[in-house]
């Protein structure tokens, strides 16, 4: 299966889960919002060009915005994590990123601890920006901090579950 085709299928699948499963779950609390769609950007292959990465993330954010009916909100957060992602991978990956070719960030390729750090930092960054923009429109500081912590924990839990269930083993050459 070609890499592009695989990622398109994955994108549709992740968006479907986000919009028609996670968004339909009755909320536990005001602070708990299950965001999952941005994991698509985290799972893009290492050799995605930086320009392409920015454009893809913008598109992903806009599609999410279409369903959440908030033009630009999710796109802005996605573009931010797309910009930071290559720096973070360079820090966490001992080798040159291009050596890995079509591999994508996972527990296997990065190692458990760096992969965990990678997820936590990008998830926090995404939610920080998203909730900051929301906070500028309404809410208090407690709302901002509470939602940031609770939503990040839920997102990380969802990504951990997805990592357990989805078989993302890419063949090592």
């Amino acid at each position, binding site marked *: 299966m070609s890499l592009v085709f695989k990622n398109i299928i994955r994108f549709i699948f992740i968006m479907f889960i986000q919009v028609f499963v996670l968004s339909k*779950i009755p*909320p536990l609390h005001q602070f708990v919002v299950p965001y999952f769609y941005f994991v698509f950007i985290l799972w893009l292959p290492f050799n995605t060009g930086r320009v392409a990465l920015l454009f893809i993330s*913008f598109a992903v954010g806009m599609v999410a915005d279409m369903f959440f*009916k*908030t*033009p*630009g909100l999710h796109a802005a957060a996605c573009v931010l994590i797309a910009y930071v992602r290559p720096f973070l991978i360079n820090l966490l990956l001992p080798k040159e990123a291009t050596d890995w070719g079509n591999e994508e960030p996972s527990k296997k390729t990065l190692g458990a601890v760096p992969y965990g750090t990678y997820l936590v930092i990008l998830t926090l960054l995404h939610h920080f920006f998203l909730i900051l923009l929301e906070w500028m429109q309404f809410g208090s500081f407690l709302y901002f901090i509470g939602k940031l912590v609770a939503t990040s924990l839920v997102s990380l839990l969802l990504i951990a579950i997805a990592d357990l269930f989805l078989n993302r083993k890419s063949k090592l050459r």
Partner: protein
Amino acid sequence: MRNVFLFLKRYSIFILFLVLQGLALSMLFSYNRFHQTTYGMFSSEVAGRVNKRVNNVESFFTLSEQNQALRKQNATLLSYLPSGAVIPGSAFQLVSDTVAVDSLKTYRQYQYFDAKIISNSVFLQQNIIVLHRGSAQGIVPNMAVVGTDGLIGTVISVSKNMSIVMSLLHRQSKVIAVLKKGSGLGEVSWDGKDPRYLLLSKIPTTIVAKKGDMVVSSPYSDKFPPGIPIGYVEKIDQDQETNTYKLKIRTAVDFYAVQHAYIVKNLLQEEMDQLKSTLNKE
């Protein structure tokens, strides 16, 4: 000049990042002021089409509940028929939706369009409902939306076949409401905490409020028909500083399960707007 190109080349990715970020943020911040953006129209058409497909499957599972709600409403409507007037149903309140101009003729003030809800959310802070009816069917922004059980929200944006409704569960939603017993003008808003409860404020404490009292839309609103249920008083608190109530009210509409809605057109809206605009000119 050469340095400029070098600079652009070196920071091209950062510049691209800033451009995309600026594009997204400008869209976000212009949205609240101008709902009728091209993006809004495009996105509600595209996302609406996908939502409709999924909704077709979903609505199948709640058929029996929807049937029941519609049957209940049918019963209410039947009781308004002249033939049913012999024994007036005491449980139902008569809504005057006609404006008498002379004693022989009556004019209809509100026209109801039925619409199917194709997308709904309760878990966000700015919850929005998408209806499968748009400008092609005569919907314009600022029309009221009511469900079978009570008030749902206001149309804020329309495309050709879809319209976007700001539901009562939206942080920026404000609806003028009265207590059915004892009236008293207040404002219904949402604190974003629990989608089952709304807040009613600004009602003076001189009016007696009891638990279970019905909150209805006010007769002074120019878009909502009077007497549409909004909720029932659940908890009574007093604001000591302003001597007003802070009432927690349970929504009349079950926002988790709502499937059908009626869009209400005020046929006198144009005349009213015209009258108001003359006031501003003077």
